[in-house]
């Protein structure tokens, strides 16, 4: 296994900041429902990334402990 993938943390963090900024812009311009939808979409996208990494980790643990 190579080094740690630092980039994915920065990716997710920057994605979160962008979502937060867009959310406040949309909210201030009076489009609350779009803002909520945007946050939901962002959470789903990030969740897919996290689930992929979790799957990788759990399969490596299962291989390690011979499940």
């Amino acid at each position: 296994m190579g080094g740690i993938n630092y980039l994915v943390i920065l990716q997710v963090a920057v994605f979160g900041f962008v979502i937060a900024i867009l959310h406040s812009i949309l909210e201030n311009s009076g489009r609350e429902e779009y803002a909520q939808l945007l946050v939901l979409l962002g959470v789903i996208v990030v969740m897919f990334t996290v689930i992929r990494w979790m799957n990788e980790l759990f399969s490596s643990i299962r291989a390690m402990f011979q499940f």
Partner: protein
Amino acid sequence: MDIVAIVFLAVVGVVLLIILRQTRPELALLLSLLLGVLIFATAVPRIGMIVNTLGSIAGKTEVGSLHLSTLLKIVGVAYIAEFGAQICRDAQEGAIATKVELAGKVIIMALSVPIVLVILDSVLQLLP
């Protein structure tokens, strides 16, 4: 030096988390989950060496491979259950965390039944 990398990753991640938590707590939770996964994934390959050493030690003694594999399975279940429970507790969901831990304990109990049976058999053989 994996530990230096892990500490750097944790520090940078925690700073980003604190900033993100004020505005978007749900994304902060996902980020902390990802951080935990990455740190854990860095530590896991080292376990392989330990497991191999344990296997070679067990090969020199009378311990059967069934017992060793059961033990390893129990350790794996404990790691995964603890990970899940900690994530749930981070999200202020203590009830779910307790249930995850309970499920882990039940599964470990079920895994250890064959070893208990072996112990019972040897005790019964000792009795006249």
